[in-house]
């Protein structure tokens, strides 16, 4: 089916379209569980994601007016299920697609929507996130980056940390304080700062998994920002962003459970390739743990799917995103450790598919260390569940 012809499809026909398109269009070497895999370059990823968008597989629920496909959340889930089934690389533009885009949709001006959103989906502009600071992680009361009025625009000075993909980003979704530090959670404002503005310096932070495109520190020294790049008024922008993020946390990367299942299948398939590993698939100890992983995966699916139904029915989803994220991240860590244990027993002269699996699962194991930290640590999620799912009183 040609690009652009997919808008009439729904339900299982849409699923078939997604599946067929992926099977015909995933570039050679892109799938981490297939022969010939080589880590795709940034440019390859950008091209592929742009093609996915043209085929209706990205920006699925965004309005067509801004380059989206105006589909339902159910179809978003369907596409995610199919994307998850394949060992595709993670999006290189997740900040734009999962964070900046939804916030701009919620609070941007018409001009901002026109300007930013299609550029995100078409992979012309990538975004990075400037929320965390050395002295303010999950707690924004200590945020020190300052935005001061400069005519109609602003001047921003401060320092950001954990800014993923800062080096390749065109824009930074940046949070800054417009009043004094004593205002704590008040007076915070959101900006779309161009990364080529004068006064911006990026210092990469090497990650434990030693990957490119990882974290960076961003230093801002009297960076000029025009009025057209303020997202909402102070307070307004950030408060709306918080609401958007609550939904986003529950709806983005819905493919995770299905990708997780892909990883488990890859592990099993790799074991078959090595005479030292194949017997482990008959060992009750590993069979029970493989089954426990499958149950975890089904529980993550069971966390995800009702969110769609609830949102479609117009219900508040509250802190459901925390349930999904926490269960997934911990289950994924358990699985990653299992995979390392199993693949650690491979023959020293194991065949290439086993080496390929060893590489993939080593990356997954290290990456999984971050999964219980980013987007709210386990401890933060447990606090949210206690406060807002269990509704426990504070108990003073």
């Amino acid at each position, binding site marked *: 089916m040609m690009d652009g012809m997919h808008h009439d499809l729904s339900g299982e026909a849409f699923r078939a379209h997604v599946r067929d398109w992926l099977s015909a269009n995933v570039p050679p070497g892109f799938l981490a569980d297939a022969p010939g895999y080589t880590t795709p370059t940034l440019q390859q990823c950008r091209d592929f994601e742009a093609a996915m968008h043209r085929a209706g597989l990205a920006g699925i629920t965004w309005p067509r007016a801004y380059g989206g496909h105006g589909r339902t959340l159910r179809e978003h889930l369907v596409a995610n299920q199919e994307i998850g089934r394949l060992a595709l690389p993670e999006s290189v533009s997740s900040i734009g697609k999962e964070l900046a885009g939804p916030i701009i949709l919620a609070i941007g001006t018409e001009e901002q929507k026109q300007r930013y959103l299609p550029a995100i989906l078409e992979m012309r502009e990538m975004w990075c996130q400037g929320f965390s600071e050395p002295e303010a992680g999950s707690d924004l009361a200590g945020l020190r980056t300052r935005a001061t009025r400069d005519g109609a625009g602003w001047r921003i000075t401060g320092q950001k940390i954990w800014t993923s993909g800062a080096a390749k980003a065109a824009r930074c979704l940046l949070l800054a304080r417009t009043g004094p530090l004593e205002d704590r959670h008040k007076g915070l404002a959101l900006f779309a700062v161009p990364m080529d503005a004068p006064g911006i310096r990026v210092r990469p932070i090497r990650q434990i998994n030693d990957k490119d495109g990882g974290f960076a520190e961003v230093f801002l020294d009297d960076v000029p920002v025009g009025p057209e790049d303020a997202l909402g008024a102070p307070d307004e922008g950030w408060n709306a962003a918080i609401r958007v993020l609550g939904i986003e946390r529950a709806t983005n990367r819905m493919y995770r459970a299905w990708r997780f299942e892909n990883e488990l299948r890859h592990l099993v398939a790799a074991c078959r390739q090595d005479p030292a590993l194949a017997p482990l698939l008959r060992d009750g100890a590993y069979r029970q743990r493989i089954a426990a992983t499958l149950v975890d995966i089904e529980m993550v699916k069971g966390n995800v799917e009702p969110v769609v139904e609830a949102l479609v029915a117009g219900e508040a989803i509250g802190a459901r995103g925390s349930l999904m994220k926490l269960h997934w991240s911990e289950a994924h860590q358990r699985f990653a450790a299992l995979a390392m244990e199993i693949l650690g027993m491979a023959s020293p002269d194991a065949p290439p598919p086993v080496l390929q699996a060893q590489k993939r699962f080593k990356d997954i194991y290290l990456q999984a260390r971050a999964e219980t930290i980013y987007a709210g640590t386990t401890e933060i999620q*447990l606090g949210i569940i206690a406060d807002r799912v269990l509704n*426990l009183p504070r108990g003073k």
Partner: protein
Amino acid sequence: MDMMQTGLDPADFADSARKAVAACLGLDPAGCGARLAEDGLLGVLAPEEVGGLGLDLRFALPVVQAAGAGDLAFPLAETMLMARHLAGPAPAIAASLAAGEGRGTIAWAGTARTELVGTVGRAPLAEGADWVLVRLAHGAALLPGSALRIAKAIGLDETAPEYNVTLTGADAACRLDAAAWSALAEEASLLRAAAILGAAETSLALAVEHVTTRRQFGKPLVANQAMRHLLARQKLAMEGMRGALIRATGCGDDAVGMLARRAAFLAAATHGPLIAEASIQAHGGMGFTWDIPVHRHLRRIRTLEAQGEAPAMREAVAAALIDAN
């Protein structure tokens, strides 16, 4: 039967089941059966020909969940399933079960020999039952309670104790073929997940109630972050169980659905006991007293886990992945 056609909603059954289960408190199994039948709860799954409602499993789940939540002293899932699956081969017996007149139960553990001798086990509340359904190598056989030697087993559940059942060679009232038994067993497994969910919910609710009212070191227990996180972890597990169960009820009759249904039981069998154990822990010394009912829910949950043969189910789940891959 389709929800749209009947205008029925499974949620409505939850309400009436909760009320009926509460009304059963203190009644003997016969009394419970009569009370539950009053609201048509025993025949939810049975076809209309034997006096049932002929509804699908989604309507039975909230009923069994309420029974788990209320520590019901009646083999509810067994009765519902027998009334459905005996409707063909033994309609009169199915009708009497659906009506709460005859009492039936199922021996979940062990297999009797085809000539109807041997001992089977894990038959909840078998004492005084009119009918016991017993697994055979192929299918199952329905035997009159009067033809069986029934002895209380060493089990945890004191409200719905398990019995061992020895066959004495008496004739079966009827038999189920292997396909019928297998369908029944798969339905039982989902009902168990619902029963565990109900019992775990009550356990956690009791723990929340305790820690919010009990004070220590000058503040309520719930002010302790460790206690909040302990309970949050239980809630996390419980919502995962619930999600897996809801997902399973929406799946089709293919391999995906089979995995989802097994996973729903295994999620409950894995996390349910831990939720009840943590709920006891949250009660401190009170948790170790007979009068605080959390231990009853733990006993019920552990019993359901064993009746569902969780380790064998995990093995089957792994086999389906490994052997198919």
